[in-house]
Every structure is written in C-alpha cells, then in structure tokens.
C-alpha cells in the first residue's frame, strides 16, 4: 500500500478527533448544552478518515445529517464546529445552522445536510463545475445506506455517469435508516450492486478498515481526476449510538452492537502502528492527550463565545438584502 507513516499518523489523529469530539458532544447534549438533534458518527470514523485522506483542500465533499466525521476528516475546525453545536456566534454558521448544517467553503465542505439524499445532487453539481472548469479536483459524496433509496441517489448517479463527472459516491452502509434495517428498506445486501445500473464501477469494502477505505476511494479519486468518471464505494460499518441522541435502539437485535464494538477501527490502527513501528505506546498516549486538549479547547471556545445577536437572524438570507426585524 502506497501510504507514508506521516499519513497513517494523520489518519489516526483524525479518527481520534472525531471520536473524542463526538463523545464529548454526546455528553454536552445530555447536559442540555447542545439543542436540537445530534446524530453521532462514533464507530464509523474509518470511513470518513480513509476517504478524505485522498483529498486536497480544494476538493469537495458533501455530507449528511451525520456529518461531524466528514467535516473533521476534511479539515473542519473543531472550535468553530463545537461553537456551532452550541449555537454561538463564533460557530461555523454563526449559530444559524447547528449540527446538521456545518459547512466550510474554504475546505471544500459543501455542507452537512438535514435532508436525506440532498447531498447527492449537490455533489453532482460540484462534479459538473469541476468538469466545466477543467480542473482535476474531485467531489466525494458521503451518504448512508438508507439514502440510496431516495430519489436523489438515482438522479445523481445517472447524471454523474452519463456525463462522466468526477464524483466519488461513498456509501456508509451502517445497516439502518433510523430503525429500519437494510433488509427492510431494500432487497439487496451490497449497495455497490447499484453501480451497474449506471455502468459505473462499484465496490464493497470493510468500512472499519481504514486502509481498505483509503485504497478503494484512492483508486476512485485517481480515476475521477483523470476524467474517467464516477465510482460507487460502499463501506460496511456500524453506528454505535442510536440514530440520534435519545434513540433507545429498540430495533437492534441482541449482540449486534457487541459484535461491531469488536471491530472498532481505532484499536485496529493502533495495533497496525505499533506492529509497524509507526507510533509507540507513549506516542499514542501523547496523541490522545493532545486531542483531548483540542476538544477541551473547542468546548471552552464554544462555552465562552457569545450567542449571536438577534439582529444576526436578519442577515445572510440574501447577499444584498436584510430582512425587517420585529417591531417590539
């Protein structure tokens, strides 16, 4: 595998950032510090991390309601993210978006999205822009298994394939759309079979194996950069938490979670690094402490930031017009 030690370390750090950011977000949600809905990515870190390790800043991604992992992996700032979860003015969206709408144009992050499947079409549009401008950028479109039944999956896969757009469709198959298991939402087990409906390459891999993800997406990225069109990469994975915080997961068979806990991608990469002398136990501990500090800083930043002014609700609707406020 064509990967440097530096890259492996970066991937490890990214996975830790995701895991620790979300673990803290979970607690903060429970404490009532984070309003609205929070959908956690814990357990699926290898997918976003492995996929984004192939990308440059100027490449694009589209994300979902379960977006923290994608955004962190694409270089999103933890402070701005946490502040957004808190609804503060220093948040990525100035408090107007929340967990489901974080975006960062400077990093090519075209936004988390509260509408299941909406990112598919936006990704096709990003691919169109790249092709039109004749650069060698790509767009990675992240989405869940259940979103592959949404209209947008089909439209965007068709458009991307017939126009040969540089889009990599990365399906995070965690086996469920909320409470509905894959067997109950589609008559297939491998989402990647859907690629053939568009004459597009499709592969299924272990989404908890970060190197497998890195390689499969890497291959797709290099095809896309060369103008050879889109690919569908299905990553089998699992979300440890409920669909959103508060979900009691009544729909899960006994033992299912336990089996997946054993496939935790983080110890897996640690083991790999130790075996290959990429990081020592001590370095790993240091890295963990460093990331813990980042999360603490992010939380502190969020806590200490101001809530947005009420007037701020009236701007950013249009580039050039401000709405009238309340006459109270």
């Amino acid at each position: 595998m064509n990967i440097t030690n530096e890259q492996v370390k970066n991937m490890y750090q990214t996975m830790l950032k995701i895991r620790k950011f979300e673990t803290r977000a979970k607690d903060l949600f429970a404490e009532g510090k984070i309003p609205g809905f929070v959908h956690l990515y814990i357990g699926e870190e290898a997918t976003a991390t492995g996929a984004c390790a192939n990308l440059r800043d100027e490449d694009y991604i589209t994300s979902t309601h379960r977006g923290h992992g994608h955004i962190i992996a694409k270089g999103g700032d933890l402070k701005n993210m946490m502040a957004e979860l808190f609804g503060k003015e220093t948040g990525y969206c100035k408090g107007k978006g929340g967990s489901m709408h974080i975006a960062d144009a400077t990093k090519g992050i075209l936004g988390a999205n509260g509408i299941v499947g909406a990112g598919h079409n936006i990704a096709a549009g990003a691919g169109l822009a790249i092709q039109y401008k004749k650069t060698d950028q790509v767009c990675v479109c992240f989405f869940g298994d259940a979103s592959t039944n949404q209209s947008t999956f089909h439209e965007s896969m068709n458009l991307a394939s017939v126009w040969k757009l540089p889009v990599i469709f990365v399906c995070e198959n965690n086996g469920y759309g909320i409470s509905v298991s894959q067997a109950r939402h589609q008559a297939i087990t491998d989402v990647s079979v859907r690629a053939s409906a568009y004459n597009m390459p499709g592969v299924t891999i272990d989404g908890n194996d970060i190197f497998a993800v890195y390689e499969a997406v890497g291959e797709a990225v290099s095809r896309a950069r060369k103008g050879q069109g889109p690919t569908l990469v299905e990553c089998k994975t699992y979300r440890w938490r409920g669909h959103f915080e508060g979900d009691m997961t009544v729909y899960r068979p006994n033992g299912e979670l336990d089996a997946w806990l054993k496939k935790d991608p983080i110890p897996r990469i640690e083991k790999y690094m130790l075996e290959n002398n990429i990081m020592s136990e001590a370095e790993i501990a240091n890295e963990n402490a460093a990331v813990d500090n980042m999360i603490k800083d992010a939380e502190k930043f969020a806590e200490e930031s101001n809530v947005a002014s009420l007037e701020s609700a009236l701007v950013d609707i249009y580039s050039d017009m401000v709405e009238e406020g309340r006459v109270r």
Partner: protein
Amino acid sequence: MRKMTYAEGIREGMSVKMRENPDVFLFGEDVGKFGGCFGVSAGMWDEFGEMRVRDTPISEGVIIGAAVGSAACGLKPIAELMFIDFLTVGMDQLVNQAAKMRYMFGGKINLPMVVRLPSGGGIGAAAQHSQSLEAWVTHIPGLKVVYPSNAQDAYGLMLTAIDDDNPVMFIENKVLYSVKSDVEDEVKPIPFGKASVLREGTDVTLISYGRQVFDCLKAAEKLAKDGINAEVIDLRSLFPLDKATIFKSLEKTHKVVIVSEEAKRGAFTGEIASIIAEESFFELDAPIKRVGALNTPVPFATNLENYVLPNEQDIVLAVKSQF
C-alpha cells in the same frame, strides 16, 4: 372526560378507524415498532401488525405516490411524512397527482387518503426541519387542509379525515405533541370547515390555528388587563375555511389580527387577510394585522429561533397598534 396529549389524540383517531375498517392503514418512515419519530404511532404496530403500520424506505415520493395509487385502488391510506419539510421531495405526487386526478379524470376516481405532516419550529431543528408550509397546500385545488391545536380536535378531525373521499393534508404541530388537554369520552368526527371560537370578545378578533392559538389566548389575557376584550378563533380547518365565523366575529369587533407561524411573506394568513379585505371590508375600522415568523429560514440557535418565531407579545403589539 379524560386528558390526552395531542399525539394521543391523533393516535386514537387513527386507531379507532383502523379497528373499524380493515382498509385503513398507516405507513411512513419508522412508523412501525419505532413508533414514529415523535412517537405518534407508538404501540400501533403491536396492535395492528406490520402490514397495517408499515415502515417504508426513505422515499417520500413513493410514500405519497403509493398513497395515491393504493387509494385509487380502494384502500384508505394514512401516509406519514416525518417532517412537513420533506413534502418538497414528494410534492409532485401530491400536487400533480393526488390533487388533480379526480378532476383530470372527470370525477371518476376517489382518493381517500390522509397525509400526516408534522410541522413548525420550536425544537431547535433548524431550517430544514422547522417549516410551516400550509400556504403551499392550501393553494392547490383538490386538497383539503386541516390543522388541529389540541387533542380533542386532532382526534375528531382525524376521524373525519379518514372518512373523507379526498386527499386530506393533516398538519400536526411538533411542539404540541406532548401537550395534554381534555377529550370527551366519546369523540365524534369534527366536520371540516368549522372553526371554533375559543374565547369570546368584542374588541378585536384574533384568528389563528395550531400552536399560535395558545399565543393568541395568552395575548388575549394580557389585553384583557388593558381593557381590550379579544375574541380568539381557532380555524382548525384551513380549507374548507369557515368564513362565516370570521365575518360574524368582525361584525362585532371590526378589528382583526391573523396569526400563524409561517414566514409572513406569502403565508396563508395573507389569504385570510385578503378574503376579509375583499368580502368584509366595510366591517373593518383598522388595518388588518398579520403576525407571522420573520421572513428568514428558521435559525438553529435557541435565542435566534425564539426571535424569528412569533409569540404572544407580537400579538399584543399588533392589537395595540389598532387602537
């Protein structure tokens, strides 16, 4: 008399009809064992089984479309969309199919279907999960639209909706789901097109529906302290619309404030205002005031969301501006 939450009112309305008529069934995303995203169908899967309380894939287009198709073939589907915001995905099946088929086919088809639409803000769910879109559906000939504000109305309107031979948009308010209120021991179907006067008054008419009915009632209490006696009308049914009750009230009060949670521009409240301005103009002795949300997407942060959505204070001020 008993207490029920709004969600229970909806659930009971559905369940009564499902016990009565095997052709009635509920389907949508996670409505089954999970009980629906807001718990409205909790327990129904146990009672009615998985064919009658059926989980669908995430495909709002075919949820509404299959409601249309199955209604055309003799069933009485109740389709739940998880959020009214997802109407955007299934709009064609609703607007170009459900609403128009009877007409296009010369009256030769029945479409007895109910679409349940959890609506509104107030739960920090941000711009894509907090909209109020009743203006879209009230604009479409062929659809009926109801919007209950309490458990009894939810129950009674659901009974009527399921019996109706036309597509009925059943708009539900997410914040109200957990609100308890009195429900009669035997709930009768509530006819569409009948508003209810929740508070009688002589000085100004407050017209509203859904969650804002409570803001109106609170505003009325405040106004009473200032000697302004407000009448509060809960429309319950947006189309058909009970114009008679509105006009009758205006003959008494000659002033009106219309309140909803919609973004004010293009809101259904504008339709009500313009009906009054056209048909009851000479009763008016003050401008018709409308209170709505600000013309912004619904922001996430709690303080911003509270600012954008209307509240009783906005109603009080609107009324006072008329005196």
